[in-house]
């Protein structure tokens, strides 16, 4: 397991985790809940931590139970004792570790004027281990290239299939260029720090040599900001959804840049029923749809459609 993850655990658990020698490649998530067993999602299965034998176990009765002090200490380490510096991220319910690992946070929301001002009693954490899957989007690139840029492209899938992973790799491949094309200037609007996973301003994931990242910024505002300042050829944005996003996308398209975005939908039929999307379908704003799927065996594959929803592959 990576040092950047082990480091945020209290000392008594760090020693156990080091002794366990958990394989970071197989580790997907670590879940901590107050007064509940510490859970590892490892190799597609759930495991508990046996602190006495210093190993992962399937036996719940031997599981280490997370205490309030553990979580408070972990939060101090996560935030480098600087709660104030991460107020915006905490308000949105996450922090990003060095290495790009995201720590989801839950607790008691502090509300003010019907907005989430902050969070306290942060006693639930979900550490998602970051894994870059380089070249997973290699086969998509030929279908989305168009002249010296790309078609306006949407990556479509339900949650958990890997839209963000594919988006990240597509950005990297477009930015670096290759045999098929020269590298493009890409601007990433990384509202939730999931694409580049910036930690203290530095991308923890490889997003390519010609990529600029606007981290933690609202998507709609971010798109307009980079248009004015970074002259991107492609703007990459994750999880398009609200009315503001759609308006911002239209402004981008009128400026000559192209959009590479993602959107939640199980299939193309569900996509057609999305609010605000009908207008885009009529005007053929998006010319490529990459429908990502995952088989029962866990294999990822995709289908590509053009603007008329005709399947290309």
């Amino acid at each position: 397991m990576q040092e950047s993850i082990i480091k945020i655990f209290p000392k008594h658990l760090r020693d156990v985790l080091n002794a366990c020698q958990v394989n970071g490649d197989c580790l997907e998530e670590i879940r901590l809940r107050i007064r509940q067993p510490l859970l590892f999602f490892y190799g597609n299965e759930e495991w508990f931590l046996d602190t006495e034998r210093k190993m992962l176990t399937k036996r719940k009765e031997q599981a280490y139970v997370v205490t309030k002090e553990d979580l408070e200490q972990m939060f101090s380490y996560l935030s480098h004792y600087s709660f104030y510096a991460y107020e915006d991220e905490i308000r949105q319910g996450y922090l990003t570790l060095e290495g790009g690992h995201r720590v989801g946070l839950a607790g008691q929301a502090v509300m003010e004027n019907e907005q989430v001002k902050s969070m306290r009693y942060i006693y639930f954490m979900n550490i998602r281990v970051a894994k870059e899957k380089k070249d997973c989007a290699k086969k998509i690139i030929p279908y989305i290239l168009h002249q010296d840029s790309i078609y306006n492209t949407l990556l479509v899938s339900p949650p958990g299939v890997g839209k963000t992973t594919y988006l990240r790799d597509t950005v990297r491949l477009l930015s670096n260029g290759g045999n098929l094309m020269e590298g493009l200037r890409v601007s990433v609007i990384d509202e939730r720090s999931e694409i580049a996973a910036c930690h203290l301003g530095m991308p923890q994931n490889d997003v390519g040599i010609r990529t600029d990242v606007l981290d933690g910024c609202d998507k709609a505002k971010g798109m307009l900001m980079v248009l004015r300042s970074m002259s991107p050829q492609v703007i990459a944005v994750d999880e398009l959804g609200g009315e503001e996003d759609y308006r911002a996308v239209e402004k981008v398209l009128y400026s000559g840049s192209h959009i590479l975005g993602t959107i939640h939908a199980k299939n193309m039929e569900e996509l057609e029923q999305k609010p605000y999307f009908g207008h885009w379908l009529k005007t053929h704003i998006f010319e490529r749809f990459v429908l990502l799927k995952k088989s029962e065996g866990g294999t990822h594959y995709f289908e590509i459609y053009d603007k008329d929803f005709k399947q290309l592959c």
Partner: protein
Amino acid sequence: MLKVTGSVFILIAGCGFGISNSFRMKKQLEQLISLQEMLYLLEGEIKHFKRPLPEAFMAAAEEKQELYGEVFCLISKRLLECKYISGSHVWRDSFLEYQTQFVCTKEEFEVFLKAGSFLDANERETQEKELAFYERQLGHMIEKRQNELKEKQRIGMYGSVLTGAFLIILLL
């Protein structure tokens, strides 16, 4: 001749002691002022740039070299190591490591150690208020010292010279 030489040496020693005392008092004041400046720098890093504490301490350390720069560097490193239960513990232990290089009084040093409590605040407003409190406290201490400095230096000097003279008389 021997008596005259001895008397001169005693007088020089007395003056030397007075001068050294005077320098010490001046250095005490300088250390108080330096710490206040460092807290202002930190406040700026936290309030305006919202830097995480390890970075804020390092940035402040780079502005001010010498003793406080070293202490703040150490604090920054320890905060990143994530080995202490709280930020105030990091502050306290780091200052204690450099204790011998501080010339302030015991009471003043206790204030230095307690000043780290602002690191344990859970939100920015409280943190800023705590920091401001210690800045004010340091301000009072500095003002008191400045008012007393000249007087104390003079008394110290006269006292040392008179003690030297008294010793001469005694021995003669």
